[in-house]
């Protein structure tokens, strides 16, 4: 019995989320005594590296029409591969791609889906975050085939040093009524959900002209930048930086909250972060209750000093 994994790529390279999904799938396969088989679609380089995360076989559908993202076609590929490999467990990353494909596949195969898993399954029971990170639920899958999507940054990647055999998979793709005309990406930007470190700032920074120090700190740390909702709403920062209950949910290793009060809706999207640092002038700001480290102080004084100290550490 094999475990099937969808390994997504971006501009020809496998994503970090894809490697996490592969490692998760390989660990499930090992627990069940089966093989981990990954599926890669479209143009993608260096896909053998999946072997290093426990995958033994990679099915590559190299048809370049798949370079334009079409979840309907990819769900068809996954269903075909699952049948060919006899897979009863299918793994995705719970990211922009996984959220588009996994539900389609679930309906196609009439298989139970658990999205946003934060731990390896215990038999048919999978743990996930619910209520926007304010609680956890253990969900049982009642169907013989189970589909799981893994929340980014929540399961450690295990490097096995193994190798994977790459096998071409040729199949006819269904015609669908959808066409990606263009993808606009600011590719220099580190993606928020994949980042290990996130530097986030709120209304306490007073205006968009003051974000230079936030960007400098992020750059020095190799971090992504984020913001609170009002900051995106007033247009100080782009919408895709808005984190929280009604924005993006993230769980980096390290989250800096600068001039953010820590409203319950903001915390909901970031409280899965492993370490939280809060910098706020108000000692009573609710964010300190969710923090691991805190500085009560003015961001305009603290952040430049922090940047200097980190530069010194890195030097």
């Amino acid at each position, binding site marked *: 019995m094999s475990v099937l994994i969808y390994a997504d790529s971006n501009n020809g390279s496998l994503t970090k989320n894809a490697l996490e999904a592969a490692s998760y799938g390989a660990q499930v396969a090992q627990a069940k005594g089966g093989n981990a088989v990954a599926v890669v679609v479209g143009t993608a380089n260096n896909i053998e590296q999946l072997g290093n995360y426990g995958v033994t076989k990679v099915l590559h559908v190299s048809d370049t029409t798949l370079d334009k993202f079409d*979840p*309907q076609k990819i769900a068809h590929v996954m269903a075909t591969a699952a049948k060919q490999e006899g897979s009863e467990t299918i793994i995705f990353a*719970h*990211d*922009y791609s996984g*959220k*588009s*494909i*996994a*539900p*389609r596949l*679930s*309906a196609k195969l*009439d298989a*139970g*889906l658990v*999205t*946003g898993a934060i731990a390896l399954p215990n038999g048919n029971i999978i743990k996930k*975050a*619910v*209520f926007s*990170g*304010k*609680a*956890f*639920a*253990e*969900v049982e*899958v*009642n*169907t013989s085939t189970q589909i799981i999507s893994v929340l980014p940054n929540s399961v450690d990647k295990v490097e096995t040093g193994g190798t994977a055999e790459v096998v071409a998979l040729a199949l006819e793709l269904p015609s669908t009524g*959808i*066409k*990606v*005309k263009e*993808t606009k*990406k*600011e*590719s220099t930007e580190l993606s928020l959900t994949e980042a290990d470190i996130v530097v986030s700032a709120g209304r306490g920074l007073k205006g968009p002209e003051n974000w230079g120090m936030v960007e400098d700190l992020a750059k020095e*740390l190799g971090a992504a930048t984020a913001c609170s909702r009002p900051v995106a709403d007033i247009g100080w920062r782009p919408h895709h930086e*808005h984190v929280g*209950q*009604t924005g993006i*949910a993230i769980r980096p*290793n390290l989250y800096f909250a600068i001039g953010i009060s820590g409203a*319950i809706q903001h915390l909901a999207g970031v409280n899965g972060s492993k*370490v939280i*640092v809060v910098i706020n002038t108000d000692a009573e700001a609710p964010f*300190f*209750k*969710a*923090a691991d*480290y*805190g*500085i009560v*102080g003015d961001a305009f004084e603290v952040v430049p*000093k*922090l940047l200097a*100290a*980190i530069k010194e550490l890195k030097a």
Partner: protein
Amino acid sequence: MKILVCISKAPDTTAKIAFTDGDTKFDENGVQFIVNPYDEWYALVRGLELKEANGGSVTVLSVGRVDTDPIIRKALAIGADDAVRIDADTNDALYVAKQIANYAKENGYELVLCGKETIDYNGSQVAGMVAELMEVPYVSLTSKLDVAGSTATIERDVEGGVELIEANLPIVISSSKGMAEARIPNMRGIMAARSKPLTVVAPIEASNATSVKNFSLPAAKTGCKYVDADNVQELVNLLHNEAKAI
């Protein structure tokens, strides 16, 4: 154009999260329920804007029991023409999707709008399942939507950017920030909502593909370690040596 907006009942964003019955059920005691924000702010309002621009109708649909009616009335007050409630418990996304897809297909809806996820179970599942069951395209995490004739022009959020998409109707869309600006119902809307039709229909036969076994709360943070604002170097030392985060 016939537009169907799927709405879900969700606890208010400030609701206390607690569980009963041996941690198997969400404790609804004292909890205020709202229309799931993504469904209301983006899916419903964009549906109304498209109707206002191109003509047609907006139906809101919710799968749920009678306690869902207040949030359905709210959607009617914001401007939907009529409403349907499929009278069933909602314990599994695939079950719910089967109900919606069946209704949408039988009644010839061309545009099905959902929110990107609910703020309670955070599944991000139903819309994609509905699309597959209807055998039509699905675009998740849509931040802009326009329709001309039988073609939809869409912007969708992806990692660090946007995708520009063209798709044929019928289509299912999951809506996220950017698609519309929230509307507040006015007195006239609230009065009108009382007499707009809300049809209750029986569910079709389907089983639950998943079931929640139990809930738990995350361990509370053990407490914040404070560093003096004049000693920022100490924070860097702690992050490096103790937390090993930088």
